[in-house]
């Protein structure tokens, strides 16, 4: 790469820098983050990032809340795929308390998590196209994200901040409505997605725009701690679902799409193919959905059925204990990670046996990508920086560590 001084001599008219604020509320940043760019003509000479515009102190909040009340907090990390955050948290607590869930719960979780991954990737990829000026594909794909949200709504009652599932399983079984909608989704979505692929993937305008836009080497990516689609775009086939399977992911066959150079086109293509792989996983999980209970038998954490609470003293006592968070939790520390929509989402939980976590830390993938962002966009064109930010899929909800 040429040094900065060369570029000044070549590009700048009279060697003058300008400061440009990209953000905090800029339509091209898709979230609240500020980039103070020192521009040399159209090229970015230097950039400085500010985080913390929506600091909510999740870990501190969590230290005062019983385990089941922390799930709504995790909703707000990467809010494009909150079911993954919720279920990852439940799995972490289950690891701590040593609870084993049935295969059916595992498979149900896989279905929900892969749906969430599809919705996350759909939004990200559609937005990359928007940032290149192709708004139409976005409107088509957004309809399907809404359909996925309909599915979440049928299970848990909410669309964006889902609070789905409970420690030990699900709050209720998949309803008839859900089955109907999921079948319709699996039947119709692939065709519509193909349409989006036709619009973008081999379109020369899109390719010219994204190929070689801010490439990143695998080595640098790993040094920063990249995971997920952004690391895979650099050519490293690291996927938590394969390397460290949780929730019965070892039962399913799927490929790990990788890119070559780590540029915007690679990131886009990796996500496109991950959507297809997720569909494969959902089909496998749904067609082999085992019979059985939809929650584990953990009377200390999973609420007893309501009719028993109304009529039976023992159930009522358990109910009070769980809601007030007065159940015994083992002392210890656990780390659990899931393949979130955007990379490895980790939960480090330390328990001192009290009703709330002693310490909790979320490993937020977006926080890590954003650290690398200044290096990625150095000496790039401003317009490339915008598509790079959207292709990294930095979600502001994860930037408040």
């Amino acid at each position: 790469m040429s040094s900065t001084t060369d570029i000044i001599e070549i590009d700048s008219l009279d060697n003058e820098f300008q400061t440009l604020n990209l953000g905090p509320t800029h339509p091209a940043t898709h979230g609240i983050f500020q980039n103070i760019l020192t521009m040399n003509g159209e090229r970015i000479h230097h950039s400085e990032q500010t985080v913390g515009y929506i600091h909510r102190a999740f870990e501190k909040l969590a230290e005062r809340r019983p385990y089941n009340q922390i799930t709504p907090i995790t909703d707000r990390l990467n809010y494009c795929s909150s079911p993954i955050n919720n279920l990852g948290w439940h799995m972490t607590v289950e690891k701590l308390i040593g609870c084993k869930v049935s295969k059916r719960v595992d498979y149900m979780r896989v279905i929900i998590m892969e749906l969430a991954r599809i919705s996350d990737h759909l939004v990200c990829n559609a937005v990359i196209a928007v940032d290149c000026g192709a708004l139409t594909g976005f409107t088509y794909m957004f309809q399907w994200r809404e359909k996925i949200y309909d599915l979440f709504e049928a299970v848990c009652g909410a669309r964006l901040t889902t609070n789905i599932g409970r420690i030990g399983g699900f709050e209720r079984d998949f309803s008839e409505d859900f089955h109907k909608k999921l079948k319709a989704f699996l039947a119709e979505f692939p065709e519509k997605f193909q349409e989006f692929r036709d619009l973008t993937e081999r379109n020369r305008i899109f390719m010219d725009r994204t190929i070689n836009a801010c490439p990143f080497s695998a080595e640098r990516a790993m040094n920063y701690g990249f995971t997920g689609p952004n690391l895979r775009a650099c050519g490293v086939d690291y996927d938590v679902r394969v390397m460290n399977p949780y929730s019965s992911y070892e039962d399913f066959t799927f490929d790990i799409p990788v890119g070559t150079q780590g540029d915007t086109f690679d990131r886009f293509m990796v996500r496109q193919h991950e959507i297809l792989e997720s569909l494969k996983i959902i089909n496998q999980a749904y067609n082999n959905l085992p019979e059985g209970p939809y929650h584990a038998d953990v009377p200390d954490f999973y609420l007893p059925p309501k009719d028993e609470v109304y009529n039976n003293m023992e159930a009522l006592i358990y109910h009070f204990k769980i809601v007030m968070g007065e159940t015994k939790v083992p002392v210890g520390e656990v780390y659990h990670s899931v393949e979130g929509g955007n990379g490895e989402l980790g939960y480090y939980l330390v328990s001192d046996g009290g009703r709330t976590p002693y310490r909790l830390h979320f490993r937020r993938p977006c926080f890590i990508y954003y650290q690398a962002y200044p290096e990625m966009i150095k000496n790039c064109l401003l317009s490339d920086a915008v598509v790079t930010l959207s292709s990294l899929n930095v979600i502001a909800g994860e930037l408040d560590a």
Partner: protein
Amino acid sequence: MQPLTSRSKIVSDKEMTIKEKLYLPAILGGMWITLKHWFKKPATLRYPEVEREFAPVYRGQHVLKRDDQGRENCTACGLCAVACPAEAITMVAAERKKGEEHLYKEEKYAAVYEINMLRCIFCGLCEEACPKEAIFLTDRIVHTEYERETFIYGKDKLVEPIESSERIDVTKRQKHLTEKQ
């Protein structure tokens, strides 16, 4: 770099064929796709004239239920307030006096029961916590207002009307009822 697994698959092909190098086919293909969409049913609804159907388990505005004799179910145990991660619920408990048996089901009742709808995150944990079938979320949405104070919903807005025709049906979201069928 060595692949870590046997499952990796390179998916991005950056070489363009001659056909792809010409802009025109891609542009025409794109136009054809968008043109087809002109003749499809629009995906949007004309809200507020038309409203979307919510799932029966939708987590919207709360209701405080009465029993079939029209008495309030809530016994002011405070469990919902404890369960609320957003600390949105406040209540004041009171003893039921003689002659009020037709108003309140239990000996204790909530004289004041307020939910701050600006704090509430509609997580549904209060509904899950209630041991008395008193509080439920419903498939109604909280409407916008102009002033902050009006978002603090008291019993006047939360308790369902006493007339049986205007009661709010929550049976579809009660797990123990739907699963027995």
